[in-house]
């Protein structure tokens, strides 16, 4: 079925919606709403709305549409590309959509599912599932739902697999950006876990989209009808999607599911207000930092680990030798600052991985892992491992401490060169091009004489190269290098943005990856669902 009808909601008066008018008032009282984690600066805008219900949101959408005012949507404002940073018109914060709505077992799929409003954050979901304590449901639910809760409590523990580093991100935001995390290596990005969406279109009406019900017609079309009988015809783009983790541009595939058009669309087509996600049983894990002699040895080991089918890793991440040097320097200044024992002096790179582990199993040997690591010229003795909660947290802290360390270095240099900022890439390539892209990075950075550190999702060939410019001349060189890296990644069949999205900051990179015809196809989808281009102006499409 490729036809779907949007439904109106009971509306309320526009004047009932809590709001702040005037840019001066907004910037004085609500400065946090002027930017996101990218620190990208907004342009002046006139209204800030805090709707508390679908009725209020619908009233805002209708009124803004009537007045022709453009709307930017904000979730938890944790994005890295300025997606929720307004450049005109109105900003609508969805922070009051913060209730967990349901937890149920879907019998046909044999899967536990959680349904929540868009502003519930990932940390809260993780904590509620872990404690099996969901107060929103218990407060408001009927008898059937409470029975389902009882059943859930008797089950083994469950978790929601996507784990973006920023756990204060809102669920809706992570769906709008198809967010990824370390565990994407095993479990895929957010897209793989979304089972249903409720989306408000720019006309103020709703679509309820379960996964698996609405597919593009053989001619590649969706038809959305509104309650007044108007049809919006959407022709899905025809360009091929990269074979990598990807958040650049609009998802497309032959016979695609309508739900996938909205996931990762950065708010271009509608406002996600409710999300249903799938859960998985949580098994105990052991987390390992494997120290290696060089970045090249790390890449070879990544390829060997991926090739060994007996090893199932949840995540596969890396620190380059230069990243370890930065942390060693930090440890030299303050031994406790990194929260771990000293990083071994001989280590010239590190891989992080996590796999199933039962601490009580006395017969565990991990022969396959041992063989692969030894085959790569390394030893399991040169590692740190953790399986107790507090120790897992300690290693997770170690995995996440590098960006903070880099930010501190940049902040120090900014005192001398105020215009300075770090430059972090978000490029990914297919498996077989990992070694090639690494060679491009290495030669480019060495040739330019820049200071850099690399970390991130090497298992997905998605390493963030962070350049630390020492002055404005360095920054200039770095920007040129980034463009060259992006072009190479695309040439290798990869993407210009694997997880951060395009937003406003990376709109120019879209042209590196997509032909003018492909971008025109994306614009046509936008135009079909949002004819007056009112929603999230500037995201994905420049200008």
């Amino acid at each position, binding site marked *: 079925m490729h036809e779907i009808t949007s439904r109106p909601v009971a509306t309320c008066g526009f004047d009932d919606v809590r709001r702040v008018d005037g840019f001066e008032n907004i910037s004085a009282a609500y400065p946090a709403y002027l930017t996101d984690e990218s620190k990208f600066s907004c342009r002046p805008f006139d209204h800030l709305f805090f709707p508390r219900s679908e009725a209020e949101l619908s009233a805002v959408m209708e009124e803004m549409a009537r007045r022709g005012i453009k709307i930017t949507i904000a979730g938890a404002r944790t994005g890295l590309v300025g997606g929720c940073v307004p450049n005109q018109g109105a900003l609508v914060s969805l922070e009051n959509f913060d209730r967990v709505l349901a937890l149920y077992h879907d019998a046909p799929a044999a899967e536990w599912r959680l349904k929540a409003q868009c502003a519930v954050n990932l940390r809260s979901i993780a904590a509620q599932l872990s*404690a099996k304590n969901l107060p929103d449901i218990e407060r408001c639910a009927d008898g059937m739902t409470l029975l389902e809760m009882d059943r859930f409590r008797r089950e083994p523990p469950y978790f929601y697999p996507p784990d973006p580093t920023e756990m204060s991100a809102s669920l809706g935001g992570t769906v709008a950006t198809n967010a990824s995390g370390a565990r994407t290596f095993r479990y895929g990005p957010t897209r793989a876990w979304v089972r249903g969406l409720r989306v408000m279109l720019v006309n103020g009406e709703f679509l309820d989209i379960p996964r698996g019900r609405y597919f593009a017609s053989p001619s590649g079309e969706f038809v959305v009808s509104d309650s007044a009988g108007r049809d919006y015809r959407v022709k899905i783009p025809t360009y091929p999607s990269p074979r990598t983790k990807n958040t650049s541009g609009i998802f497309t595939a032959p016979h695609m599911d309508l739900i996938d058009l909205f996931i990762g669309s950065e708010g271009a087509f509608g406002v996600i207000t409710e999300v249903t996600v799938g859960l998985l049983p949580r098994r105990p894990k*052991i987390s*390992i*930092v*494997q120290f290696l002699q060089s970045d090249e040895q790390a890449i070879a080991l990544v390829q060997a680990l991926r090739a060994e089918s007996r090893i199932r890793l949840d995540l596969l991440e890396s620190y380059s030798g230069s990243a370890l040097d930065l942390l060693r320097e930090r440890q030299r200044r303050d*031994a*406790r600052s990194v929260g*771990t*024992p000293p990083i071994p002096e001989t280590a010239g790179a590190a891989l992080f991985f996590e796999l199933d582990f039962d*601490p*009580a*199993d*006395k*017969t*565990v*040997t*991990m022969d396959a*892992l041992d063989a692969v690591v030894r085959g790569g010229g390394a*030893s*399991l*003795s*040169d*590692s*740190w*491992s*953790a*399986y*107790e*909660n*507090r*120790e897992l947290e*300690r*290693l997770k802290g170690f995995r996440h401490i590098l960006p903070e360390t880099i930010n501190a270095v940049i902040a120090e240099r900014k005192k001398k060169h105020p215009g300075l900022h770090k430059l972090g890439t978000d490029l990914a390539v297919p498996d077989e091009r990992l070694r090639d892209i690494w060679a491009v990075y290495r030669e480019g950075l060495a040739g330019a004489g820049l200071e850099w550190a690399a970390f991130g999702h090497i298992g997905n060939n998605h390493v963030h190269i962070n350049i630390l410019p020492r002055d404005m001349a360095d920054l200039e060189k770095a920007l040129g290098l980034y463009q060259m890296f992006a072009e190479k990644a695309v040439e290798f069949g990869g993407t210009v943005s694997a997880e951060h999205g395009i937003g406003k900051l990376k709109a120019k990179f879209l042209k590196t990856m997509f032909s003018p015809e492909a971008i025109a196809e994306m614009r046509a989808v936008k135009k079909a669902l949002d004819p007056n281009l009112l929603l999230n102006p500037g995201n994905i499409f420049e200008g």
Partner: protein
Amino acid sequence: MQIAVCVKQVPEITNVRVNPETGTLIREGVASILNPFCEYALDHAVRLKNGDPGIEVVAVSMGPPQAESALLRCLELGADRAVLVSDRQFAGADTWATALTLAAVLRKEVPGYDLVLAGKQAIDGDTAQVGPEIAEILGLPQVMYAVEMSFTPNRKRIRVKREVESGHEVLEARLPALVSASKGDAMRRMPSLADVLAARRKELRKITAADLDLSESELGLAGSYTQVVKVFPPEPKSGGRKLEGLDPAQAAHEIAAFLRAERYV
């Protein structure tokens, strides 16, 4: 040469909540860990062993069967073998009954001990009594709150740097001796995956009360001189009084008047 390290499994109290009605700890869902001070003690043992591979490090614990996981961690961190003494008869043991039991385990399972190490206290009970009591029972010299230790060149004595209120002092004790460990500059180790796997092949002996040379009247509640009558959280501290917006002379007057009124001076 043998070093025995007495360890305890404790709840991971960083995220423990208190039941507001009963005032007791909510233990449900709280993980159990090796008491951090015991881990520092073990760390000293492993350092001493690094200087002399001939030393055998034996971790010893009294606790329920699940305390095995704390001993597994000791084996991962470098202990050569471990002994768990576990029995229903130990239930309700106070510090004295615990010390008596552990001393009996040491006599039986590590009879050649040259040094006994312990954490300065457990983070759940916080009594800091079991270590000193073991020393008394075994007739050993004791040094508490150690942050560094090394054998003297003739290996007849242990030299210990320990924390005192005014700073540090360095003491020497003849061996065998009992030393308890404080935190100092210690950074908890991270075992390698090879260590974790090897630990599961090391000896972890489980014994019961029947294996010890003690009478029933010396065990658990029966052998205890003290009993916990009630556990309750301390009164939350109030914020105190803060003087603001005064010049220093005025503030000094106010403070002096307060101290006089309350008879502090």
